[in-house]
């Protein structure tokens, strides 16, 4: 694979020096859906030393329209996204170091996987996780690159501790109702533009071209051919819980006990058992058999139908109940199955 980076080292701001820096870099990518697919592929092709991919989901048919690492076989096999992603990335470049985290990312997990990171990349689909990334980034003093997309619009911006206000300054209160890709759709070119801007900022940071980094938040709409860029320095909140003088990083504090959540726009309730409780795929199989339910076991999870809801139990005990938006019903079902 001689000269595989020649077109990138010919690009003068990167050159041989930047390429060597890339080789030693580690980026943590949180989310491996549309943005995460695109960003991780770009960085792996660019020659980055190591990527960590974290995602809690598996590939479904409706992902294929915009999630470039996955194919029909991945969707048919319900392969976890990080597993399918690693397979494709490995065929693209054998000598890249890839660490996968098949889990719901919370504070402790994010802090642990980011310890030796040079950069965090946001490829999540919700504001809660972005506040988590924001807190981890400021606590560990690592930049993170915001990117988001919905419909034909997208945004991108590099948040840099010590340089820029933080995401919490910009969005102190989370929107109660919010358009998501699952409610108003999304087109692939919008994903690609957001991801490309994130990848470009990542390449700048990781090759030492920090002065080239964007200083205005980009918002674009590729269908209506509009875009706006605006600086955010006036949004700095001196009392910010993340980037103020007395930070508490509230998003990082792990919740204890069983956690229930309605996954944004997914028609899915997620249940993460208390740390003390060891629930595995084998338990799911046992329960499904006891109740005479049909089930399907993959190397990563067991799928079964309980009370007409499709359930996915991962080996770390995380349970997804699809077709359900009501947390109380989810809680009831969980307890009826696993006590």
């Amino acid at each position, binding site marked *: 694979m001689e000269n595989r980076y020649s077109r990138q080292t010919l690009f003068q701001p990167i050159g041989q020096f930047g390429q060597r820096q890339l080789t030693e870099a580690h980026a943590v990518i949180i989310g491996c859906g549309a943005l995460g697919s695109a960003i991780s592929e770009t960085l792996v092709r660019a020659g980055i030393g190591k990527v960590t991919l974290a995602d809690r989901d598996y590939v479904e048919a409706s992902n294929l329209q915009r999630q470039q690492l996955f194919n029909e076989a991945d969707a048919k096999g319900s392969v976890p996204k990080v597993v399918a992603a690693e397979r494709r990335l490995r065929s693209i470049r054998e000598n890249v170091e890839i660490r996968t985290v098949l889990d719901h990312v919370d504070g402790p997990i994010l802090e642990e996987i980011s310890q030796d990171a040079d950069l965090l990349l*946001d490829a999540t689909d*919700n504001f809660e996780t972005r506040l988590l990334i924001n807190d981890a980034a400021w606590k560990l003093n690592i930049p993170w690159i915001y990117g988001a997309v919905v419909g034909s*619009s997208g945004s991108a911006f590099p948040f840099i501790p010590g340089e820029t206000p933080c995401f919490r300054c910009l*969005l102190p209160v989370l*929107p109660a109702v919010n*358009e998501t890709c699952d409610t108003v759709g999304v087109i692939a070119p919008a994903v690609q533009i957001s991801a490309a801007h994130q990848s470009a900022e990542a390449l700048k940071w990781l090759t030492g071209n920090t002065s080239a980094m964007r200083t205005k938040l980009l*918002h674009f709409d590729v269908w209506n051919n509009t875009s706006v860029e605006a600086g955010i320095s006036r949004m700095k909140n001196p009392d910010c819980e993340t980037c103020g003088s007395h930070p508490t990083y509230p998003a990082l504090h792990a919740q204890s006990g069983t956690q229930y959540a309605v996954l944004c726009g997914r028609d899915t309730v997620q249940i993460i058992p208390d740390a003390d409780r060891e629930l595995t795929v084998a338990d799911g199989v046992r329960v499904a058999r006891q109740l005479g339910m049909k089930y399907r076991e993959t190397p990563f999870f067991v799928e079964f139908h309980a009370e007409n809801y499709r359930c996915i139990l991962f080996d770390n005990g995380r349970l997804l109940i699809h077709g359900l938006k009501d947390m109380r019903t989810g809680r009831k079902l969980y307890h009826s199955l696993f006590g």
Partner: protein
Amino acid sequence: MITVHYFARLRELTGKGEESLDRAPLTVEELLDWAETTYPGFGKDTIHVAVNEEYARKEDVIQAGDVCAFIPPVSGG
């Protein structure tokens, strides 16, 4: 006169990409109130206003000639 730009969802809601307003000077908060009244469902609580390519605070004053953009937050990915 100030110029205001609408993006994404707001473009569909208002049915236009931009318009001119003869209301300056006014604060960002007043502009958002005006938008919510004029276009029910605007959702002013979570929308940012950029004035001349800088995100502005609620209390900032918009002057005649300023160019404003309403920017909705984007969370998908």
